[in-house]
């Protein structure tokens, strides 16, 4: 069978794959930007998560506190 036989079906399959993969990549990129911009907007208005306001906990803070006590 010649390589060019049914070339339209092969091209259509690869085009469909390219479209589906492109849509998925664009979806995650656009969604990421949208969520980041929403968070930035809300934080500008003064709304932040309580855990974000606390200083990061040191890994051995409990042990150190016990030693200090």
């Amino acid at each position: 069978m010649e390589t060019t036989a049914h070339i339209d079906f092969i091209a259509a399959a690869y085009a469909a794959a390219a479209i589906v993969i492109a849509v998925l990549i664009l979806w995650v990129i656009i969604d990421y930007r949208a969520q980041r911009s929403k968070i930035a907007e809300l934080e500008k208005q003064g709304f932040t998560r309580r855990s974000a306001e606390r200083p990061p906990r040191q890994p051995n803070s409990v042990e150190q506190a016990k030693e200090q006590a």
Partner: protein
Amino acid sequence: MALVDLANPSRFLKLADHVIPWLAGVTVLIAAFALARAMAAPDDYQQGATVKIMYLHVPSAWLGMLCWGLMSAAALGTLVWRHPLADVTAKAAAPLGAAFTLLCLVTGSLWGRPEWGTYWVWDARLTSELVLLLLYLAVIALWRTVEDPSRAARAVAVLTLVGAIDLPIIKFSVDWWNTLHQGASVFRLGGSTIYPTILMPLFFMTGAFTLLFVTLLLAAMRNEILRRRVRTLQLMQAKAAS
């Protein structure tokens, strides 16, 4: 970093920010190599060049099923252990699984027309694969129906575990019923029936598709965690306004 530390969404976000760009780069390189090998592969002695559709169809089918298997494991994580990232994983994975299952059906139809003389036939393999796509759409719809993510997660987890019964049906449909779709030819007792010069590019393409899936899944999980943070902040905003 211990594996259990990844259960913390903040730590997961930090890790994802570092890993995703590298993973995306590796995916592009592997995909370019795999695609070059697929294009250079010889034609099949019976099917001719249409065998090149296999390099898209088989990895898509594999990912459609792998994704539901992953969602089933995440469903157990939600129902049994209430793992913080389990329902995030399940929600992020569903659209990816739906996309790859759709691609499997489309490429299968485009392969079937020149080989079988028809785009579609209601045989067991094709029908069970279509059922998988409908299950994905049902899961996506259920996520959108229930506003509270933790309540939606439990309902989706039950549906996911019930839907998992479709996976062995898809896999063994060609053995249990008389189907137009061919039987297992890659992983089977007695070895693959595909000649190595055609089989190796298939493995490379499957690897590339799997890497793409992992990259997209991590990115979608990061987006879902951010979406939940937006929801928390919006609830704080609404409370402050009232």
